[in-house]
Structures are given as structure tokens and as C-alpha cells.
């Protein structure tokens, strides 16, 4: 019996082993310096390169479900976690949603997702980072779990998005019910698919306690949904956890997102992200409103009503060329 973790890491470590000598010479970006929490601003006009090199202008906003339990820590909203990183060849963003069911076993669900995202951030700066394979990023990050002294258990969904500057294409990998949505000229052009085993049980990367392997749902990074598509100047990309997609109906989201098409001012972008997150939060706490979650529950023969209280993470970016 090969648990997914063991199989994944065997494949990954063999692949990495063949190029291990280059690992020693990591990129010059430096380990922890990347992913400032604010926005990346377009550079001064003088001396800009001739070929169109797209980049993200990105902002983050979110709310933890339970403000009392979770003090604010950068990079996390409750059990959700996110990261942003940037290299010469790519801009990377990602979110991860820790599965809350672990709390009843005494495991902090936010630890796994936070670790996954922090490691992705560090791995982006390594020399073996491939801007066209976000699945690899997730897989390597997942393997790093095995190398931690502190035991990290739990599971989470994940969604990673890479903008490859050379080719102006976006590559994505999504496991579970977090996702992204791309808006151009008032229309949704790309959207991720929710991956679920059954209702309210999304695909998830997991590291179970030893000995409980067979009892725990564990999907390997290979089962991620991948997409690649070109982007144009002014496209709006939203990556969010299910706290947003389950509470905010798509047309409302579309309305909000189309307003910032082509926006390069990070302050305005931040305002939109804030309002979207606030919208999601308000709707989630509303017990009468027929949220997308409630609708989907009804389709599964569950009489639900109102929003779904959950952690909310919004990573909003526009493509600037």
C-alpha cells in the first residue's frame, strides 16, 4: 500500500535528486525577502524594458471566522493561509484552506495550510522552481513536510497560480474547493472547478498521524486540477478560499471585479478587495440569505439556509504589462 505522501515524495525526490547540485546555487533573491504584504507598484517609466513583461499588482484581504480564537498573524486568516512571491521570471500567488475537522483530534488545522504556503514562498526562490508547473511547487512543498522536526499534521486545500512573464501565460493548480476566477471585459473568462469527494468534503493534501493513514482522506498533488491560459493587460484575477465562493454569488462577484479591470493603483485595488472580503463576511453571517453554499446544499438534499461562516481570504490581482 503506497500512501500518497510516500509515493509523491519518492517521485519528487528522484526528480530533484538528479538536479540536486544546482540546488546549492539558489537564486539571488534571498530566502525571506520576498512577498511583501503590500502591493507591488509599477516601476518608474524611464528605462522600462521593451518587450511586454507582465506583472501582478496584487493585494490581500480577509477575515478569520472566529476572531476571538485567532489573533491576527501575517499570512493567515484563521485557518486559511496565503502567499505571494515574485522572481525575475514569474509572479506567484496562492491560498490554502485548512480543514477544520482536525481540531477535534487536538491538531491545529491552520498549521498545515500555513506551512504549505510559507514553504511555497521559499521554494519560489529556489533554482529548481519551474514557472510552468505549479503542481511541482505544491508537491515539493508537501514533501518538505516530511523534513520538519516539529510534527505538522492536518490537511488543507490549495490553489496556486503562477504568471510566467516570458510567455504572459498563467498556470494554475487547484486541489479542493478554493479557487480562482479571471475576469476580462465584464465576463468571466476562466474559473476553477471545485473538487469534492462528496458534499463539504473537498480534495485535500493531508498528513495524517502515523498509523491512521488508511482512515484519512489524502489526495496527492498529482490529482490537482491544472489550467494554463494567456492573459492580457487589465485582466482581473481573484484567488480565494471557499469562504468567498460559498457566500458571494457569482454575479455579485463579477460586478465587483469588473470595476477594477485595468486598475494599477494598489490603493484602489485594496479598497475593492476589502469590500469583497467584507461582503463575504457579512453574507456568511446572514442566516436568511440563500448563499451559493445553501443552494448547493439543497441540491444535495440538505435543507440549508443562510451563509456559511468560514475564514475568508481574498487575493486580488490585476495584470499590468
Amino acid at each position, binding site marked *: 500500500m503506497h500512501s500518497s505522501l510516500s509515493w509523491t515524495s519518492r517521485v519528487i525526490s528522484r526528480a530533484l535528486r538528479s538536479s540536486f547540485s544546482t540546488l*546549492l546555487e539558489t537564486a*539571488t533573491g534571498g*530566502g*525571506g525577502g520576498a512577498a511583501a504584504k503590500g502591493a507591488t507598484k509599477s516601476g518608474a517609466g524611464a*528605462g522600462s524594458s521593451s518587450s511586454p513583461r507582465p506583472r501582478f499588482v496584487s493585494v490581500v484581504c480577509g477575515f478569520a471566522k472566529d476572531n476571538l480564537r485567532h489573533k491576527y498573524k501575517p499570512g493567515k486568516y484563521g485557518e486559511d493561509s496565503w502567499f505571494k512571491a515574485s522572481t525575475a521570471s514569474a509572479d506567484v500567488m496562492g491560498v490554502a484552506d485548512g480543514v477544520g475537522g482536525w481540531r477535534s483530534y487536538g491538531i491545529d488545522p491552520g498549521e498545515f495550510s500555513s506551512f504549505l504556503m510559507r514553504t511555497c514562498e521559499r521554494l519560489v526562490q529556489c533554482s529548481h522552481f519551474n514557472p510552468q508547473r505549479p503542481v511541482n511547487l505544491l508537491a515539493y512543498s508537501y514533501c518538505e513536510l516530511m523534513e520538519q522536526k516539529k*510534527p505538522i499534521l492536518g490537511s488543507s486545500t490549495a490553489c496556486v497560480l503562477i504568471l510566467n512573464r516570458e510567455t504572459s501565460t498563467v498556470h494554475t493548480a487547484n486541489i479542493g474547493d478554493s479557487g480562482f476566477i479571471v475576469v476580462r471585459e465584464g465576463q468571466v473568462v476562466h474559473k476553477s472547478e471545485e473538487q469534492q469527494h462528496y458534499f463539504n468534503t473537498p480534495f485535500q493534501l493531508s498528513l495524517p498521524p502515523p498509523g491512521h493513514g488508511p482512515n484519512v482522506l489524502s489526495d496527492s498533488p498529482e490529482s490537482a486540477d491544472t489550467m494554463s491560459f494567456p492573459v492580457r493587460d487589465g485582466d482581473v484575477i481573484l484567488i480565494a478560499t471557499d469562504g468567498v465562493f460559498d457566500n458571494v454569488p457569482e454575479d455579485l462577484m463579477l460586478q465587483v471585479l469588473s470595476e477594477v479591470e485595468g486598475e494599477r493603483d494598489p490603493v484602489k485595488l485594496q479598497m475593492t478587495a476589502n469590500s469583497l472580503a467584507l461582503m463575504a463576511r457579512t453574507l456568511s453571517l446572514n442566516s436568511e440569505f440563500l448563499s451559493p453554499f445553501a443552494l448547493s446544499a439543497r441540491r444535495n438534499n440538505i435543507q440549508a439556509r443562510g451563509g456559511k461562516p468560514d475564514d475568508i481570504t481574498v487575493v486580488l490581482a490585476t495584470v499590468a504589462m
Partner: protein
Amino acid sequence: MSLLAYGEPAQSSDTDSSTAAEAEADALVDFTAMLQRQRQGEHGGWFGYDSKMQSTESNQGYYLEQYVLGVLDFSSQYGIDYSISYTAANVVGRPTKFPAYGDYPETFPMRTYGDWWQRAPSATREIQPQNLPKLETHDYVVVYFEEFVVPTEVAIFETFNPGAVVRIWAYGLTKHWTCLWEATESDLARPPSDSRRFAPALKKTTMVTKTLRIDFNHSRLNYYTEIDAIMLCGRTVSKTQNLLAKQQRTQQSRTLVSPPPEVIGSPPSDGTGGPISYKLRTLKFQPNCGKDGATKLHEFINNDLSQFLAANCMDGGETPPQICLTDLPFEILLRILSYLDLKSLFRVGQVSRTFYDISTHPLLYAELSLKPYWHVASSELLCTLARRATMLRKLDLSWCGGFGNVSPTEFKKFLTQRGDNLTHLRLNSCKFLNASCIENVGIVCDNLIELSLRNCATDPPLLNFSCLANLKNLERLDLFQTYFETELLLSMLEGNRKLKHLNLAFCGVSVNMDNVAAHLATYNTQLISLDLWKAHFLSARGLQSLARLHQLEELDLGWCLREASLGDGLFQLLSNCPKLKKLFLSAVRGTTERDLMHIAALGKNLEQLDLMGILNITHERVYDILVHCPKLQLLDLSFCDNIMDRDFQLLADWSRQFNVDIKSSRHH
């Protein structure tokens, strides 16, 4: 410290140089470019860290602080090479955790600490130990930076258990290593447990470098030491090429050997040195001898020696009698010189013909270690040594040959000439090794008892096909961090039935360890120590095979078997291997409470026990183990998340009570 406002110096290196301002600066205002334009007219003294502007020097550089760009070599690391946790690659770039203090995966720890590995059953003795300096080097890391500078400061950011750095070397343009700083005894007093930026006073030098090597000695440390970053500060030189030429012209070649003098030292004027007794007779000294001849010497020493000495010092007129070294018999001289280190031996050989003859005697070269001389080891040295070392038995060429100083051809020639009687061969971290060198070892050195090829990982692996299949007498095989082809190892295991010590740390990635374990159980039942660190894919089945090695005294299963449950593998191991002294179960998370009870019940001879990161350890189990394992010296309970903060005082009390060194970590 970057001057680019609003962060993210996208592809600039971590330097403060004005050349770091690249076109892609994501800045509202590019201060660096502004300053550059401002200073264009001036000398290029950027930021003017020194107040003296030397207007005569047209190639005056600027002061520069830079972090590591890449790692060229390291002797050991805690993590496995493809990972970014606890590995040498974390030294690159700015410090990520400093000034925080703790055990973080974003830093670089080495594999060992303290003297626990020297106290384990697998400990080895150094070859030619008199060569070693007082503070010998256990581990090293070689890093390079972006710009050449004249070094003025090297700062090492230590974030856990500081105090291991003992030497800082720099590699100059003339391809020589210079030691910029060396620790003295007082420097090794253990500093307080806090993160520190260690920047010792460097030797004043004019050399230009961008490659550094840091040597570590962690024998006095409590636990692993971890390095977050290394910074090299100095003054750049813009005309690097001219400087190189100048340095090469003025450089005098330094070698360990200078040609021995043809003509020889002058013999003493009163005839050739004769035997001691003759000398004594000429001194006209009559000791008091009793009837009983046996007490003569004893009496002489007690009663007459002082008188003898006094009498002979007082003589003014005659030439004072000389007993010099050359009077001593040849064998005694040989014995005396055998205590000398290699460098001094060569120097002694320059004194006179007699001393040259003695110092080149092959018996003095039965054991040869060039490890402490890694910075001057060269093909010429090997050639010279080959002439003398006709009775070579033990050879240690570890760490030599970096940057092409030793050629594989010369090594093969040396081995062919002198290798057939070799019993111990250590070639750790030898960069000149290639597959044909290893083949040569396999063919020539069939009397080998010990073969150590640590840290020789290359792709494709050095050890392939049947290159070492000829070796049949091995008792110790050390392949730490070296890749090999599984078939080769299996055939070697089958061939070397007397194998006692086997180190396969970090080799477990593409190797089926269960298979290896099964082979060991079948063919190598005399095994005393086995190191399978980070053999991720060892399973419970492999553990059960290992239980058939009844002579086992040391077993390192760190980071193996992680997500699998052990079954009763550990119980069988403990029952069948009663001699077990050292058992490392770091991060073997499948260890259950029952396993811990078995350890307490069956581990009567346990001296070192590592239970780092094991879940569900309670302090009752710890107490059990402490009570029932009387010989326990080391117990590592770091990252055992069930040991709560309030138990730390308890652990400290037990540590004193049972006289056991208990390691534990506080959660941050």
C-alpha cells in the same frame, strides 16, 4: 540594506553595491540611481565609509557588504540535499531568522554536535593525529559571493547554539587559501545561548577574494549549531585583472616541500658523535656504585645526578661535553620523530643529511593524513610522498583536491605505487575523485579494512557497476551522503562478511532499504553499527530484518519509517539485540507508547537515545526509561510536543538525579 524603496529588489543580488540597481527596480523612487548620478563626478567612493579619500588611487573601490550567493561545498548537513529544511542551501542570501533564537528549518545545522559521536560504538580514530591542530575542524562549508573584495570583516549569523566557528579561510585570486582568523582557546568559551552576529577580528591582508570557507568545531556545544547567513564585507577593487597579474608576479610559490640540501650539516669538531657510554667515559665521572648492581641507576638518579650536572656545568676550560640528538641510536630518533606532525617532519629534514635520512624513512610514513593540510595539498606533494611512503598502511586524503589542486591521474599513480598494503583509506569530500579513481581503489587496495567515501555525491554516482567488488575484507564502510548503485552495495555486502560498521546516511532516496536490510540480515550478521539516517522508505519489514543482527550496538534510524507504524519491529529489535548502546529514533513518528515501554524494559545497555519529534511521549514514559536504563547518558526529547512547558523543570531535576543529559526544546 537596500536603497530601493518599497521592497522587492526583483533580481538584484543581496549586495549594497551601486551596481545592484537593475532595470526592473520596483521602486517609487530609485535612490540608488540618484546617488549614482550624484557621485559620478566623484571617485566612486560610494557612501564614503572611509573618510580618507585617496585621490592618488584611481582604482579605489567602495565598501561593500554582501551575503552568500551560493554554496560550493559542505561536509555535512542535517537535512537531505533536495530539501530546503535544515540544509546548507539556507546559508544563501540574507538572514531569514536572525535575530530570533531557536531551532528553525530555515537555517543550516550540521549533522553532529558535542562529542556524542566520538563516544558511540562507531567512532573512529584519526589517522596521524599529530597533524591535527589543537582545535581541529569537524565540519566546514565553502561559500562564494558575488563581488571580489579585500576582506575587512566576515560576519556569521548564528541563530542556535553559537560558538562553533574556529577558522575562516579565504580563497585568493592566486588560487591559494589564506586563513583570515583562527580561534584560540579563550574564544571557545561557550557564549550565552542567544543568537549572535559573530564577526571576529580578521588578519590584515591585501588579498582579494570572493570565496570563503568556514571551519566548525562543535565538540563543546550542547546541541546542534545553526547558521542563518554569512556576510562578507570589504573594499572592492575595480581593476581586478591588473591586480591578479600583479599578485602573480610578486607571489612566491609556497609549497610544503623545499628541496633538501645536498650538503650536509657539520659534524662536531671533536670527532664523530659516538655512543653515549663513550661520552660518559670521557667525562671522567665516577658514580657511586653499591655492591648490588641493580640499584645503580636508581641511586645515580637520586643521589648523583644533580652532582653530575653541577660538576659538568662548572667546567670552564674544557669544551663542554655535548650529547646531541645525532648521538642517539637511529631507532630512538625514529621514535622521537614519529611524534612530529607532517609539516615539522619536512622542516626537520632540511636540517642536515642525517636528519634528512631519518625523516624520510618509510616507517614514519606508515600513516599519512593530508586532511589538516587540505589547503596546500597538491599533486606535487602526493608525488613527493609517494617516494617516501613505501610502507603505507593508512591514508587520509579527505578534503583535499578542491579547485583542482590534486589531479585524479596523480592520485591513481600514487595508489598504484603505494596502495597495495593499505588497510585504511579515507577519501571524504575529495573533489578530484572520478569513477576510474574508485575503480583503481577497488583493484589495487584489496587489503582494505576500512573505506570511507563520505560526501562524494555526484551525478551519475561515482560508485557504480562492480568497481569495488574486489574488496573482500572490509570491516568499515562509510558512504555518508554518497550515492551508489544499489546492486553494487548489495554485492559488496555479500562479499564482505566481516563488515562491522556501515554508514548509509542520506543514501536512502533511490535505494530500496528493505532490500539492503534483508541483505544485511543474511550476509553481515557481525554488524556492530548501522546508520540509516533519512532512509525515508525503510518499512516495518526492513526493521524486522534488522532485528536479526544480534551483534548490533548502534543503530541510527533517524527520519526513517515516518508515516508507517512500526508493528512489533522495534520490540523484536530490542529483544534480539541486547548489546544495543545507541538508538536514534529521531522523527520516527510511528513510535508508540508501547514501543517506549519496550525500550525501558529491554534497553539495559542503552547509552544514547534520541526520541526527537516523537508524538505522544509522556513524562511517565520518560521516567520509566530513566529508571530502567541505568547506563543512559544522552536522551534527546526535542520537539516532543507532549512534553509541556511545566515539565521542563521536572526534566532538569531528573537530569541531575539520573545523571543523564536530557535535551528538550521550548515551543516558540
